[in-house]
């Protein structure tokens, strides 16, 4: 095998597995024929195959019917999760605001490349990034597995990591949130509810089956419970994140519940939201220098970004209607 062939074969990995099995040899043969005279592999050929492979992967995840709609919803959920997680990361990095106010189990205890990282945050980051990468590459099962791992991390944190100094019965981040927003001593258990409901929802959503009216109603109920749980967990929220949560989460939930589409890509993002939102909120709240106008700008920017992302995803799915391998 020549170096060119080795590199071309590696590039073919960009294609979805079934397409690679059906057409990989043919594409490779054409690449080798087209670059026979060259000693080195052609970067253009490699780039074109990787781009075509990515396009097909995106298309594989947005198969008709309603491919464009599905792509838009998936990308909106994805963008929302990424943005929220990004703000959360910034919040965790801003040790100066958070180190003194976070419970012990969440406080940054490790410094990597100047970033302050808590064990909980490390677990959150691994599951989030894993789920996002899996979503981008249309590896739905992996995305769901990562999302479920994220839920497990969160449940574990809430249930089993007591932190001293907070009046909540289980002493955790949720308790911290509660005591910060309310003087009422509340149990943080219902913080777990959305995650559990979500995990159940993901578990019951079958592979690509068209939902009947019963399943749609069930999804709607589940989504409303999800939103109610979030609202309970985040009451007294304010600032950009509150607006984001109040406006977008019900929309996302309703879209997922009512659409005839495969809800899993969008659902896989929700644990990230559930996990990242409190951190984001803490960050916004802990920063006394953030003016209200800044909040609005951030909120508007985030909303615009999400809408743009969704439109771009829907448009590309609409434009790039892929083909099927020929049966010759």
């Amino acid at each position, binding site marked *: 095998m020549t170096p060119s062939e080795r590199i071309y074969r590696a590039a073919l990995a960009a294609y979805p597995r079934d397409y690679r099995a059906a057409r990989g040899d*043919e594409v490779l*043969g*054409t690449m080798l*024929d*087209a670059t026979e005279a060259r000693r080195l592999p052609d970067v253009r050929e490699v780039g*074109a195959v990787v781009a075509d*492979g990515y396009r097909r992967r995106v298309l594989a995840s947005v198969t008709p019917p309603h491919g464009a709609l599905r792509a838009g919803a998936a990308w909106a959920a994805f963008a929302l999760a990424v943005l929220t997680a990004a703000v959360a990361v910034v919040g965790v990095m801003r040790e100066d605001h958070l180190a003194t106010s976070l419970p012990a189990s969440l406080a940054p205890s490790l410094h990597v490349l100047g970033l302050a990282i808590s064990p909980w945050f490390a677990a959150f980051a691994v599951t989030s990034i894993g789920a996002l990468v899996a979503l981008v590459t249309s590896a739905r099962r992996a995305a769901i597995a990562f999302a479920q791992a994220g839920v497990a991390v969160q449940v574990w944190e809430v249930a089993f990591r007591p932190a001293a100094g907070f009046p909540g019965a289980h002493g955790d981040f949720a308790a911290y949130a509660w005591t910060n927003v309310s003087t009422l001593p509340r149990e943080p258990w219902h913080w777990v509810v959305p995650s559990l409901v979500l995990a159940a929802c993901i578990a019951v959503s079958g592979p690509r089956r068209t939902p009947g009216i019963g399943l749609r109603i069930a999804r709607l109920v589940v989504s409303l419970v999800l939103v109610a749980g979030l609202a309970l967990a985040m009451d007294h929220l304010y600032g950009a994140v509150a607006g984001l949560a109040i406006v977008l989460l019900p929309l996302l939930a309703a879209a997922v519940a009512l659409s005839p589409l495969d809800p899993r890509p969008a659902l896989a993002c929700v644990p990230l939201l559930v996990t990242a939102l409190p951190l984001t909120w803490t960050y916004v709240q802990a920063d006394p220098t953030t003016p209200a106008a800044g909040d609005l700008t951030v909120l508007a920017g985030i909303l615009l970004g999400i809408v743009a992302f969704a439109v771009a995803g829907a448009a590309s799915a609409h434009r790039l209607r*892929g083909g099927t391998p020929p049966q010759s």
Partner: protein
Amino acid sequence: MREPTYFVLAALLDGRLHGYGIIKRAAELSGGRVRITAGTLYGAIDRLIERGLVAPDGEEIVSGRLRRYYRITGEGERVVGEEAARLRAAAEVVVHRLRPAEAS
């Protein structure tokens, strides 16, 4: 219609070709200007097959490499003909104005 797609259809007008054959023929027909990569080619071919403009037409193995052949369909000939007429009309809009004496 995007230019690589147009030249893929044009290349097939003279008869069935395999992937690399299409790439070579498209380059010849365009005077070396249109250089189609394999990734672009198969993206275009699959869309053309889906639209019924091109059909797979047998395969063979030459020195260990799989070659699948493609031919243009009647519908494909019609669509590329319409595109050519459109391009000619668009070209004449300009040509008439640049050299009114010659073009008339």
